[in-house]
């Protein structure tokens, strides 16, 4: 469960202070499927980065699984990201010199998992995203959709509670994009909380809860479909 209380995030741009997040209150329950939409500069990426602990609030409090994480130090934040958060980026961010399997293994390597165990786990995850035939391919030998699926594997290999996706289909054709969305929706059905930032109404519309942001505030919060 994630909870934001009166969270602000200000940026200094020249002489001006930009309120990327302006007193945001938000509660996300475990297992939710949320889309965040809104115009450019409305603060949706800032919200996602803040929830993913890549950024810290200027003021306000962020509770992650009943723990106040707004004022943690660098190494504690890194540990929280490692355990609880999975990221999917628009541009994949795979390490070019590592194979698909090694890219997926990376979080486990950083966590100090024993090689045998992590290798098995990485295979399992790549199998789940349909890439068991591409284990030894390097990113430049994979298609865009395949790369994003490797990135999804890397995001879930630590079994985090939350999957944060920032425009996950932004660099993909519609067919690959659909595949990627289907995979992460399947992961959501299996229990992971899913938050997708997108400007594509088709993708945003598939979520069960729709947040709409404008000028750093949440101006819409609707739930649709079966709960």
């Amino acid at each position, binding site marked *: 469960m994630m909870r934001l209380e009166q969270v602000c995030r200000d940026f200094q741009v020249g002489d001006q202070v930009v309120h990327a997040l302006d007193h945001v209150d938000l509660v996300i329950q475990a297992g939710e499927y949320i889309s965040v939409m809104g115009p450019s500069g409305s603060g949706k990426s800032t919200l996602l*980065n803040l929830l*993913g602990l*890549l*950024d810290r609030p200027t003021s306000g409090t962020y509770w992650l699984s009943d723990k106040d994480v707004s004022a943690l130090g*660098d*190494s504690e934040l*890194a*540990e929280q*990201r*490692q*355990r609880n958060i999975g*990221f999917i*980026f628009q541009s994949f*961010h795979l*390490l070019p*010199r*590592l194979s698909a399997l090694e890219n997926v293994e*990376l*979080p486990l*390597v*950083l*966590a*100090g998992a*024993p*090689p045998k165990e992590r290798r098995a786990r990485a295979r399992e995850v790549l199998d789940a995203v349909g890439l068991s035939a591409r284990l030894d391919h390097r990113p430049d030998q994979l298609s865009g959709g395949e790369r994003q699926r490797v990135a999804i594997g*890397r995001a879930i290999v*630590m079994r985090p509670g939350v999957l944060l996706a920032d425009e996950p289909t932004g660099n993909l054709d519609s067919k690959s994009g659909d595949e990627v969305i289907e995979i992460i929706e399947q992961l959501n059905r299996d229990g992971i909380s899913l938050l997708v930032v997108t400007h594509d109404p088709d993708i945003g519309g598939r979520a069960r809860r729709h947040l709409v942001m404008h000028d750093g505030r949440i101006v819409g919060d609707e739930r649709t479909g079966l709960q």
Partner: protein
Amino acid sequence: MLARDIARFTLRSVVSHRMRSGLTALGIAVGVTAVVLLTSIGEGLNRYVVEQFTQFGTSTLAINPGKATTFGISPGVLNSVRPLSLEDAEALERAPYVLHSVPAVSGSASVEARGRERTVNVFSVGPEFDQAFKFNVRLGSFLPPDELDRPRAVAVLGATAYEELFGTTNPLNDRIRIGGDRYRVIGVMEPKGDMLGIDLDDTVYIPAASGLMLFNREGLHEIDILYEETAPVDEVVAGISRILMARHGGEDFTITTQQQMLDVLGSILDVLTIGVAALGGISLLVGGVGIFTIMTIAVRERTKEIGLLRAVGAARTRISQLFLGEAMLLAGVGGIAGLAVGFAIVAAVTLAFPAMPARISPLYVVLSEATAVLIGLIAGLLPAHKAAGLEPLEALRTE
């Protein structure tokens, strides 16, 4: 993160830029090769010199006129230096532990024999010279044990001098002329070889008293003492000192033991070796600058990767560790390559020129590799610090 995973990760990054990493490591390799090569030659030279000096045995000492080892104001009566005389040399035969006492005067002189003329080293020495310094006679005999101050006019030829003057004919009982005086040849020595580049065989030996006249000297250049090998050096020196002081009325001579000579030479060579090591150190430093440059570039190129690593759970310290490890790996690999090349060159040199003294010193091998890695560490500090300081979000967004 497991230690071997850190090693593997850094290795992968280094290997992924083969050319660049190779060139960077080359800078360090050149430095390490230079250190290994130069110190090996220095060390070899050291051994060579020690061997040269100890080929006559280690239980020798030399007495020279004049006081050289202490400073300060000496009382007026002792101010004058009395020359070392043949009698002094004779008296020292009776000093404790002394086996041989050899007076010596040396210089260059022109020698004439059978119409040929040659300038050679003339060693005018006591009759025990050959035994004291283990010189063997090939033909005839060495200088006879005449009374020191009234010797017969006889000469013994060194191997080279003999060949040059007489070829292969029998020289015994022939007359030769040295600086105008006539001498009868009574012996020829076996070849002895070089000492520090001086041909010990291009020599004529005559009695010490004849040398004093030939070179028109009041006193000896030196008295060489051979003492019992098991004797305590301090007591030998004290005994000699006592006798000479009684004869001269003061300490107007200098005793130099073999060990002191070796120490002095050793310290000169040490300075030389440290000097060349410092020279190699400078090339290592230049290599370090190369590593610093390449690591700075690597941090810039891999900013996105750093952001990603941070996003999936790497703390700042881990990032710093990875980049430091990479810098040290570059330097360490360069160092090992440098060692290998250094060893190969030393081996090749030793094979091609067996006379060339070169000997790898393990101390400098360890020291140069450790220095290389240390330089890698230092060169990597700033880039690693920069990498660790990147904000994950900004790093991810970098194009």
